[in-house]
């Protein structure tokens, strides 16, 4: 396997994690990852070095944005939340609360926060993924964090963690 393909493959677990966090739907998340991989592998000949990881995250982010746009006017159904999966949250993480809080964020803010916090991308890389200046990334990050804090402080006071 070429090193390009190996690099793509090495990023699959992280792409799945990001997609799952973005969509909160395992089926949908893996569909997004698959589409991302297909696009990336098709474009192998167009890739002349650079950061494969950021590029893959860019593709996935754009695909999800397209998906949300095209589905905007359709009726929603509610898939099952997995309330009893043993690994659904860290033991002390208030995992479901943080998921609800994330779900309140607008897409751009959620992307920025997840890419920085969950995937460890630099501000510069996130700016490339989102196609905006770093200042915009930072303000998205700030708004995301403020909103999550307000949600966790206001609606779930019992579960606040005292460090």
């Amino acid at each position, binding site marked *: 396997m070429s090193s390009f393909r190996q690099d793509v493959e090495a990023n699959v677990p992280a792409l799945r994690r990001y997609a799952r966090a973005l969509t909160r739907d395992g089926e949908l998340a893996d569909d997004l990852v698959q589409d991302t991989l297909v696009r990336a592998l098709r474009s192998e000949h167009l890739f002349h070095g650079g950061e494969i990881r950021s590029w893959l995250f860019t593709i996935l982010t754009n695909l999800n944005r397209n998906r949300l746009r095209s589905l905007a006017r359709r009726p929603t159904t509610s898939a099952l939340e997995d309330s009893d999966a043993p690994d659904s949250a860290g033991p002390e993480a208030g995992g479901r609360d*943080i998921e609800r809080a994330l779900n309140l964020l607008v897409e751009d803010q959620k992307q920025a926060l997840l890419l920085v916090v969950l995937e460890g991308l630099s501000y510069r890389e996130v700016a490339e993924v989102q196609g905006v200046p770093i200042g915009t990334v930072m303000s998205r990050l700030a708004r995301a964090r403020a909103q999550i804090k307000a949600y966790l402080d206001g609606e779930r006071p019992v579960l606040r963690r005292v460090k």
Partner: protein
Amino acid sequence: MIDRESPVTEDELHAFVDGELPADRQAVVEAWLASHPDDAARVAAWETQAQAIRARFRSIVDESVPSHLKVDSLLRAGLNWRTVAAAVAAAAFLIGGVAGWMARDTTEVTAAPGDPADQIAQHALSAHKLYIGEIRHPIEVGASEMHLTPWLSRRLGTTLRIPDFSAFDMKLLGGRLLPGEAGPAALLMYENGNGDRVTFYCAKLTAPQMSFRYYQSDNVAAIRWVVSDYGYVVSGPANKARLKELARAAFEQLENRAPPPPANRSSNEPLISRRGT
């Protein structure tokens, strides 16, 4: 220590949390936080958020990657994702196993209008609402009649396995045949001591394998899934957690051919065993 000429900005606080702060500002920000408890509390809250997010999704990277997301299988399938999706869905479904499949963590999603898998859920819900209200004739053929399963199996074109919900105190009343979108559909009705009714719906459905999805309509709800060209729907009172348990039990009984739970099934015992048509 504090450089009063250059107060710390909010951007710097975020950069501090995210490890993006230039080295020469590190000490300044730390000193600032030591003397500004409000900012220190905000930074602590952001760090807690980050930890919670990482903890929540940590397990995903340890999961084995499904075969349809492996580079080799994508290349073999010619990088046509429609083909890929169709070709590997079934394999992934089986390989992933029941546990992984069940563990899917999902939430609000949008459904394509006219999606057959959604239509089947709507049909099942309509039938559920119509027939649970029937006091005298909720069913066509009673559970005690030996030909119930062979009859429905023959009409559906598959060996119908009737789920046993006795572990949920739900006793099979019987079933009926309904017109479905792509042929006949079977509706089985169950009832508990309180008169709560649950239905199990099965009809031929040419669609990819699909995991559970939840539909709600007023005070009743349904969960549908699709396996091997048949759609299945469990409908009942709109209690997501309970309905999910029922759907999971039905799924496992159908897929795993697991023996039904042992409790209380003297009356419908003959119907549980698998019958040929």
